């Protein structure tokens, strides 16, 4: 007897949705069992990590703040991933976007208000898109693999950040610590829910997935992205230009990352220092796949991911488990989703053992 994987003609919608949900549940169950085995109250730990962050009257704000950049970046990356254009450099595009916004803020001097803020955000998107455009140019002109170039440009972006905040944009009142001067109040994003920390950027992260959903499912552009990704040959025959798709995917991915960077900068800490890049651009890749490259999926996945972060930090003080636990949960979740993916797309069949050498099966 041997196992054989057979491709399903059409994966069912139910299974596509059920797989991630089941993965999260399975992660929680295994978490309870493992914690109980090592002598920590498992149910309490898993409650703290997965449920308290959304149910607590204050913690949901932290989840929202953490999820917003993840969702926005993941939306942009999903477009590229659908078209099989792999942008690994969202972290760098996020940094350059924030720096571009900071540049506008600094250039505006004492003036602020909605106009300046809009300009800052626009600059963030353009900055991120420009940084994402470099791998697109390299790929379309010189056939350079965009996975490598976009990733490596992230490190270049970090050097640019270090140079700017340690040199030309260093806060004159900052005692020679590398950081920009804090933004004036009239250059920061408004709080939209009084009495909370929910700023305008969070609203953007909630609205954008629906915009992307309409764009991807209803427009010719969305169709093009899907066709290029799933059937490149058919796309060529249909007259869709592969080069143009690469450009669009990288510019949108970069633009969204830049948007997230400018919103985080103007909405949260109001300054840029060397601690600013903390991995949102990389985590968003996971969010994009966790959300099955679907805009609404990204919204949900971004929230789930943020919950594990916030919950992991809370569980450190409530049940005294180490911070790495959150990382283990995230990894477990991703593992289950990828594993279940096989079962969603393929069916397992038992075959009687054959004499022929079935290499590779």
């Amino acid at each position, binding site marked *: 007897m041997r196992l054989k994987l057979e491709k399903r003609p059409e994966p069912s919608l139910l299974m596509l949705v059920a797989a991630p949900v089941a993965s999260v549940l399975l992660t929680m169950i295994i978490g309870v069992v493992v914690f109980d085995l090592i002598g920590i109250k498992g149910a309490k730990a898993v409650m703290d990590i997965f449920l308290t962050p959304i149910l607590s009257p204050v913690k949901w704000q*932290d989840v929202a703040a953490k999820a917003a950049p993840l969702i926005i970046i993941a939306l942009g990356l999903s477009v590229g991933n659908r078209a099989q254009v792999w942008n690994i450099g969202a972290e760098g595009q996020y940094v350059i976007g924030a720096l571009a916004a900071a540049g506008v803020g600094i250039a505006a001097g004492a003036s602020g208000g909605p106009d300046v803020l809009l300009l800052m955000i626009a600059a963030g998107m353009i900055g991120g898109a420009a940084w994402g455009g470099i791998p697109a140019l390299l790929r379309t002109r010189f056939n350079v693999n965009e996975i490598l170039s976009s990733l490596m440009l992230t490190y270049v972006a970090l050097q640019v950040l270090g140079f700017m905040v340690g040199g030309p944009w260093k806060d004159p009142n900052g005692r020679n610590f590398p950081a920009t001067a804090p933004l004036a109040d009239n250059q920061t994003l408004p709080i939209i829910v009084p009495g909370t920390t929910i700023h305008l950027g969070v609203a953007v992260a909630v609205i954008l997935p629906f915009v992307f959903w309409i764009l991807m499912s209803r427009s010719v552009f969305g169709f093009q992205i899907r066709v290029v990704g799933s059937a490149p040959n058919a796309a060529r025959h249909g007259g869709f230009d592969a080069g143009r798709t690469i450009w669009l995917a990288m510019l949108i991915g970069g633009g969204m990352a830049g948007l997230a960077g400018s919103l985080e900068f103007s909405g949260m800490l109001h300054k840029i220092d060397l*601690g600013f890049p903390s991995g949102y651009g990389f985590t968003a890749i996971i969010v994009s796949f966790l959300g099955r490259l679907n805009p609404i999926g990204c919204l949900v996945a971004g929230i789930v991911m943020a919950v594990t972060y916030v919950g992991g930090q809370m569980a450190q003080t409530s049940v005294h488990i180490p911070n790495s636990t959150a990382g283990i949960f995230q990894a477990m979740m991703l593992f289950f989703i990828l594993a279940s993916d096989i079962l969603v797309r393929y069916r397992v069949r038992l075959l009687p053992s054959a004499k022929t050498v079935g290499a590779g099966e």
Partner: protein
Amino acid sequence: MAQISRRTLIKGAGALATAAMIGKPALAADKIKVGFIFLGPIGDYGWTWAHNKGREAIDAALGDKVETIYVENVAEDASAIPVIRDLAQQGCKLIFTTSYGYMDQTIQVAGEFPDVKFEHCTGFKRADNVSTYNSKFHEGRAVLGTIAGKMSKSGTLGYLGSYKVPEVVLGVNAFALAAQKQNPAATVKLVLIDSWFDPPKEAAATETLINLGCDIVTTHTDSPGPLQILEQKGLFGFGQGADMSQFAPTAHLTAIEDIWGPYYVARAQAIVDGKWASADTWDGFKEGTVMIAPYNPAVPADVVALADGVQAGYKDGTYNIFTGPIYAQDGTLKVKEGEVMADADLATIDWFVKGVESAS
């Protein structure tokens, strides 16, 4: 070896956690809560490990009146704000944020909780309920520089740094100046890796320094990774933040130990007594905040005497490495003969001394 001890550490933490739960109900309500925000894992055996020792000192000294909690691996971005706020919401009366990158986050949360006192390590922004504290690590670097200058055969020393912030610049300068007192031709090659804790990156940078001809490397990052590389190559180095000799018994010449316990206990005691006030503290050898770990037998007796002399000089105020003449990298005279740099100038320093070779 590291893995084994780390595993026992986790087991120990688990046992502690269960013990804490069993003994909790009766006492918890009466105790004053003190919270800690940690940059790395408490098992980094360096910076965060030393701060955690300080936290344990509070438990040991004031355990009947004070309960401590901590959060480790807190990123130095905006997401630190909710973590600090969480400690305040959990009822902490005193919160230590133990890295420079939490400065504005600490100030922001302190504004929301005027009744909670905050202590920010290595920053400069204070408020009525925010103190700052720091340690004169550069005094320890002068001891390491003395040893390195005397013991290096090539005269080329390596310095593995994190970021170009005043604390690191001070360390580099103190190390270079002290080495040049022993060997005027000594040069210091500097590599900054833009991280405080990243063992693979630290190891790679150490390899680079070795390839550049450095035979002694001192680290201003937090893991014992670089020492392990030096051990393999038969070269020498120093521990950072804590005695790291267990990771490199031959290569580890000595270490700068950060001793936070006395300060932490004093500040927690002040909360218990209701006498806490905002202050700026910058202590060194004299106050016992900086200490030098036991010397490796490889350090010759005359070098030990020199190193002990530097320590004694700092304790009685007769030694200061930042005494002129001091020249900047490009050769311009920065501090005149006989002049001593003031603490205020040291705290904002952004230039390297002559003999330091760096990219920036």
